[in-house]
């Protein structure tokens, strides 16, 4: 394979594009027998990828706290940033000796059918190293017209449907080079379509795993909930091997129809060798309710851009986030609440706990268009810093172009309160128990708003595990 180099005029050093080559773009497309439009989209995205500077090289406000800054005092403190990212190290595909796309040996327990059978999940899809390894959907939902499959399958079965949503309305290939990279090399992920009026009570489960070392996962998720439908999706991202380096460059596109109710939970638990980039956007129509639930726990470095577009009048979006970093992790989340219609409500609460020398960044923007009269928007980010060497950045923001709105925001950062520790210890709790209780109490306002017991339990377990390290 031919290594490609491009020279970026804005930066003194070259970016080695390595395995992310045009040859592989074509290989992925032809091996999977994709329709012509997808092949064109991939190649178009690849072109963009080549021309767009990496966002960490020309950082804007959204990226600069994760980028390798060449100026100011910031990067002296930010020892962990994207400088260490060597894209050429990661493989978007693995090939068999005869040039076919290789499937890794499954590492996830094959339980999807059982989960659906026992009503634990309405449907399950498991993706490993970019390839679907498991799939199940309840017969009842099939009967009701719910479509749930990996996108490769969907491209064969519902090409036009995929085409109208895939990187056209929500996440775009031209925002930054990671989105372009994703558009060119995406594999795996899923399409979920819930028809009008269908209410799915039991959640859908999606597992996205990295198993082989130096693999890149570029899962693409599309959720289309038609008018008056209801659905909950729980997506877990995990590393099968605690030490295998990896890269995730994902995209999530969610379309919430009129009066629909959708919950989307993503729990990210990559190991500490995984670079994690994710672009997520939900477009919410009139009178609909949408809830993001984000558990950011893993990865070496994460950059997540999460956008809610309140497109139809009277809709509501809740954005709940829990992050817990430790060791040398760096998690940077940018959120955007875009109010495009009147009488829309958004409520964001991100809670972060930091341990050891880890760092987290949250930057948020409430943007109200002139059409967004009677917007009610709120954003709050709280940080609990457990060690002196951990560092939290919090940057709330408002931009309001309508005159009758209620927009409020707040941000806090603090260390653990010694008086609280003493109070709890005076009642018999050890220091560790007191700390655990204070951390649980800190997360509770966000945790209490998660309507899914299983997700709450998972997050609580992760918090317990992290505290015990």
């Amino acid at each position, binding site marked *: 394979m031919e290594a490609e180099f491009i020279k970026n005029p804005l930066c003194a050093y070259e970016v080695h594009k390595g395995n992310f080559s045009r040859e592989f773009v074509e290989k992925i497309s032809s091996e999977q027998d994709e329709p012509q439009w997808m092949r064109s989209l991939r190649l178009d995205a690849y072109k963009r990828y080549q021309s767009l500077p990496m966002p960490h090289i020309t950082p804007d406000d959204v990226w600069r706290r994760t980028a390798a800054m060449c100026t100011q005092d910031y990067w002296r403190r930010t020892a962990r940033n994207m400088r260490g990212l060597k894209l050429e190290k990661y493989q978007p595909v693995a090939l068999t000796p005869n040039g076919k796309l290789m499937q890794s040996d499954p590492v996830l327990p094959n339980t999807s059918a059982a989960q659906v059978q026992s009503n634990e999940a309405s449907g399950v899809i498991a993706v490993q190293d970019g390839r679907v390894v498991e799939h199940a959907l309840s017969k009842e939902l099939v009967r009701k017209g719910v479509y749930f499959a990996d996108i490769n399958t969907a491209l064969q079965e519902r090409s036009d449907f995929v085409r109208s949503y895939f990187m056209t309305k929500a996440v775009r290939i031209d925002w930054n080079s990671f989105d372009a990279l994703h558009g060119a090399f995406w594999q795996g992920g899923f399409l979920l379509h819930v028809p009008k009026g269908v209410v799915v009570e039991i959640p859908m489960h999606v597992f996205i795993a990295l198993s082989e070392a130096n693999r890149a996962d570029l899962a693409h998720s599309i959720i289309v909930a038609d008018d008056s439908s209801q659905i909950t999706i729980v997506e877990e991202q995990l590393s099968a091997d605690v030490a295998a380096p990896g890269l995730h460059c994902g995209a999530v596109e969610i379309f919430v129809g009129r009066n629909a109710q959708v919950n989307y939970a993503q729990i990210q638990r990559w190991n500490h060798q995984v670079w994690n980039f994710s672009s997520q956007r939900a477009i919410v129509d009139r009178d609909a309710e949408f809830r993001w639930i984000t558990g950011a726990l893993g990865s070496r470095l994460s950059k997540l851009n999460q956008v809610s577009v309140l497109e139809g009048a009277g809709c509501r979006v809740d954005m709940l986030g829990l992050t817990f970093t430790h060791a040398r992790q760096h998690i940077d989340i940018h959120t955007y609440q875009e109010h495009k219609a009147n009488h829309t409500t958004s409520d964001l609460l991100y809670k972060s706990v930091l341990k050891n020398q880890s760092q987290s960044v949250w930057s948020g923007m409430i943007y109200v268009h002139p059409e967004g009269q009677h917007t009610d928007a709120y954003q709050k980010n709280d940080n609990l810093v457990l060690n002196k060497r951990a560092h939290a950045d919090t940057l709330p923001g408002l931009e309001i172009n309508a005159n009758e709105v209620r927009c409020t925001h707040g941000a806090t950062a603090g260390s653990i309160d010694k*008086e609280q520790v*003493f109070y709890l210890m005076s*009642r018999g709790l*050890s*220091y560790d*128990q007191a700390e655990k*209780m204070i951390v649980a109490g800190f997360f*509770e306002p966000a945790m209490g708003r998660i309507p899914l017991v299983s997700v709450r339990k998972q997050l609580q377990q992760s918090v317990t595990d992290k505290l015990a390290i």
Partner: protein
Amino acid sequence: MSNNLVIDNLHISVEGQPIIKGLNLAVKQGEIHALMGPNGSGKSTLANALMGHPFYEVDSGEVTFDGEDILGLEPNERARLGLFLAFQYPTAVPGVSMANFLRMAVSAVRAENSNGGETTELIPMREFRRELRDKMKRLGIDESFARRYLNDGFSGGEKKRAEVLQLAMLEPKIAILDETDSGLDIDAVRIVGESVSQLIGSELGVLIITHYPRLLNYIRPEFVHILLDGKIVESGGWELAQLLEDEGYDPIREKYGIAPL
């Protein structure tokens, strides 16, 4: 029976400033002591230091509990031995429900290995709930209290009642009540006073720290001590509290040549 809590020639300073200057006191189960003193006499310093607050430095002297030196122990180890402090200003812990907290505290204090070992085992939920419900009922505390976050948004009276509930649940041998009547109106003092007096029996010794004898009308002490400038200057019975009620601290200050603050 020997004394449970014995304080021997204790000296404590705060930021280099001596506050407690040679204090002696012994309290055992079943006894009620009142330690009275004006503001600034060192009452809260003593209470917090006995519980092991890291801010207070013990310079010299000894404090034993059931014969064991407790000055080197962590606050939780002291709690497990059977020492309890009802705080003057209980700290709020948002997001932690009263019930969750109490279950963990009760489990920790009652653990088999009460000497330093940490328990991860919680007492059974049903057993805990029954006990909590019973005790709340006895103390006239509404059941919804258990679901509220610990001291978070509590009124002054609610905070003090929460302290008394904890006292009832943890069943210590010796309880120190630090200004439990402060900031309360007459009715609240009565409610708290009656609650505490319900808990008093042969198993519980109490050290009531107060500058004002109001609470003592509900919990009558057998022993009254007067703390002035970091030392107990007089000890006596109920009549000493009455004397203070009638005349205030000035005659005593005068007697020991200590200028009023």
